[in-house]
């Protein structure tokens, strides 16, 4: 009975509203009370038929063959976005307070009621913004300290110390990636398979260092393998005075030739970037290495390590030669300091005629580095150059003079200015 009344009431109120309120022209629907039709109010549509995962997959999927070829992995591919992100149950287009869902039923002593809260006009925009940030392929941005040799690539970047072995922890060790490349091999059963190969050098900066190569299907796995292998294959190197090698040397591995020179404190590492990383791992701070021939990175690393291992300390050199080894430093006015002495020193008569006594020649195994002749610059041979030099002589020293005047008098003026002061600028005008 009551329901029938309610139904009647609703039937009446609507036309009443129509008459009374004079609603705008938008309402152009007509209540059809004579004939009725069943229009299905469907709760299921295309988007509800399947779970989100399957829907997305249908849009972005790549065939099996395509996946093997590596399609759909680059910058152009569409990313799956989770549309639920940024949304909470209970908050929607119409901002309403649902007690029991998004708000507590009783707050203090008050019983909350369902009520409409003020709308958030920017809600849609926020959601769109969030979804946009999920889609695009973001280039990983690294800070300059973390950055390696180039961009966000791995070579040159540090990957922490090697994993600790049973009871040994690698304290003070740091590994740097030298090479990370993907190799493709053709297999009979699988076809083309992809492998990552990583070359890594690890060291503690105190003379212990080692390099390792690792191969795996995934890049991080390859790096890890290489790192641990390097940790297993550590070598101890002696460093002269804590900053450089003992003497110049030449090494080669394959077609890669390295001319390495010992340098003074403060020179820095003037070498190939891979050799720089190795030196930093070992603890060498000043060096010059010239690469000749092939620049195969693995050969460079191996050549360098071989050369370092073949180095002789000053004491060993003195013992080999059976002569004192004396060091002359230019900043100490070339005062001779005896660096190493053998047990028995040969006399002049005991030295054969053709023996190499020159230190550099002996240490480089009789190889001589070609010193290129320096030719004059292109302008020095031009006809007007001498005339220019003669003219320039007049004001060649003027910069220094200006500096000295500023230091002595505070400004650029002659010593006669005190007696004969210059007229002021303003008065002249």
């Amino acid at each position, binding site marked *: 009975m009551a329901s029938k009344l309610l139904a009647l009431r609703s039937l009446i109120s609507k036309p009443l509203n129509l008459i009374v309120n004079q609603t705008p022209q938008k309402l152009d629907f007509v209540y059809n009370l004579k004939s009725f039709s069943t229009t299905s109010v469907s709760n299921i549509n295309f988007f509800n038929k399947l779970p989100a995962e399957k829907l997305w997959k249908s849009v972005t999927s790549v065939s099996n063959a395509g996946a093997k070829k590596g399609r759909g992995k680059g910058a152009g591919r569409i990313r799956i976005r989770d549309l639920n992100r940024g949304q909470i149950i209970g908050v929607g287009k119409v901002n309403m307070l649902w007690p029991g869902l998004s708000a507590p039923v009783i707050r203090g002593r008050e019983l909350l009621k369902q009520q409409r809260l003020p709308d958030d006009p920017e809600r849609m925009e926020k959601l769109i913004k969030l979804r946009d940030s999920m889609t695009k392929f973001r280039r990983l941005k690294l800070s300059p300290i973390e950055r390696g040799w180039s961009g966000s690539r791995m070579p040159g970047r540090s990957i922490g110390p090697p994993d600790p072995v049973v009871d040994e922890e690698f304290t003070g060790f740091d590994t740097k990636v030298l090479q990370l490349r993907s190799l493709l091999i053709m297999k009979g059963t699988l076809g083309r398979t992809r492998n990552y190969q990583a070359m890594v050098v690890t060291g503690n900066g105190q003379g212990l260092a080692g390099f390792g190569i690792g191969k795996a299907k995934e890049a991080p796995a390859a790096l890890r393998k290489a790192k641990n292998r390097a940790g297993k294959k550590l070598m101890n190197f002696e460093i002269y005075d804590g900053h450089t090698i003992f*003497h110049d040397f030449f090494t080669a591995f394959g077609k890669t030739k390295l001319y390495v*020179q*010992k*340098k*003074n*404190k*403060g*020179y820095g590492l003037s070498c190939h970037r891979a050799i720089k990383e190795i030196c930093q791992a070992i603890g060498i701070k000043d060096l010059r290495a010239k690469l000749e021939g092939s620049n195969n990175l693995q050969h460079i690393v191996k050549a360098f390590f071989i050369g370092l291992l073949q180095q002789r300390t000053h004491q060993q050199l003195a013992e080999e*030669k059976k*002569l*004192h*080894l*004396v*060091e*002359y*430093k*230019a*900043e*100490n*006015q070339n*005062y*001779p300091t*005896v*660096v190493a002495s053998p047990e028995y*020193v*040969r*006399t*002049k008569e005991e*030295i054969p005629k053709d023996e190499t*006594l020159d*230190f*550099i020649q*002996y240490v480089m195994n009789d190889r001589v580095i070609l010193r290129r002749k320096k030719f004059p610059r292109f302008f020095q041979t031009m006809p007007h150059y001498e005339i220019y030099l003669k003219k320039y002589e007049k004001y060649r020293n003027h910069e220094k003079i200006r500096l000295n005047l500023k230091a*002595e008098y505070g400004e650029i003026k002659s010593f006669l200015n005190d007696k004969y002061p210059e007229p002021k600028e303003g008065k002249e005008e």
Partner: protein
Amino acid sequence: MSLLKLVQNNTKSAFFRCNEPKIFLISSRKLSIVPSIYDGEDPAPKFFSSGIQILLKRLTRPDFAKVFRKRNNSNISVLRTPKYKFVTDEELRMEKLKADKSADRLLQMPPVVKVHKPIDDVLSIDPALIGYDSAKYLFTDISFGVDNEHRTIIERDPDGTLRSCDHAERKRLNQGRKIREPLIFQDEEKFHSLLDRLQYEYVLDRACVQYEPDEPTYHKLTSITYQHIDLKSMYDLLRSTRHFGPLAFYLTWHKSVDNLMLELLQSADVREAVLLLALRQALHGDLSSGEESSALVSQILPTPVQLTKKEQLSEEDIQLDTKCIECVDKYINTNSAMKSQQGLALQGFREHYQQLVELSRGLKKAHGAA
């Protein structure tokens, strides 16, 4: 301060008027040092005599590590890689000799000469030339081969007198160094702040560059520096440099060796203490233990320079050292002004030395037995 400036400016005229030594008081914040110049007797002949030169060289105790240290003011702009050489024993000996020679050159002492007399000889007076010009005329002999010191430079004043130029003008005309004096030498505050910061070597080097050794300003600056060092007992800063010789000479000349003696005793250098006594004897000849010290010198000099403390002593060393100790003891009792302190230091040294003697004798016995 104005009085001081007046006095400084009129140094020249002050010297003209009276030949007695003038003492100018310069008060600093905490110490008041009186610069005393080598007045009266000429120190040059004594300074350059070979015996005293040897003594002074020995007292500087040249440590090659410090003599050949890296200097910031040297002319190399960039560091170079060290060079290596294989040498035999003979060649090594030759290299060491060459190094000694260059060390001698680096340790060459700036000469101690007396203050130059002001030049004041008038060649002619022509009052007829008054009003001819308002400027002075200077005439220089530019013939080749004449030393700068011996060049004839004369001036014609506006009032007609023709006279030889004074040292200041000679220096300016000979175009030796910068006309302007460095601020540290003009401003007392700055000078004393440098000395308080113990930058003695820098100050002395700068003074050598700026002034000739026979100028009154040079003498004044060096005397203040030496006295400052004496007061602070910071002799070690100047050891192995070329300034230690003149410092020792100055202190001995003015009979204030006691601080230095105390420092030597505290650092257990009895032999150098005896050398110092010999120096005093040579300069003044008023020590009771004078002849003994001079005799000992000839025995000490052949022994090598002691840079580090000795651990083992030989019998000759022990004999020599005991004689030295006796000599020094005599000096302390008779001529020293800091008797108590030096006596204490000597006592301490005696005990330490006794231990060393026992140790070395014991070791020798052990080695002899084995």
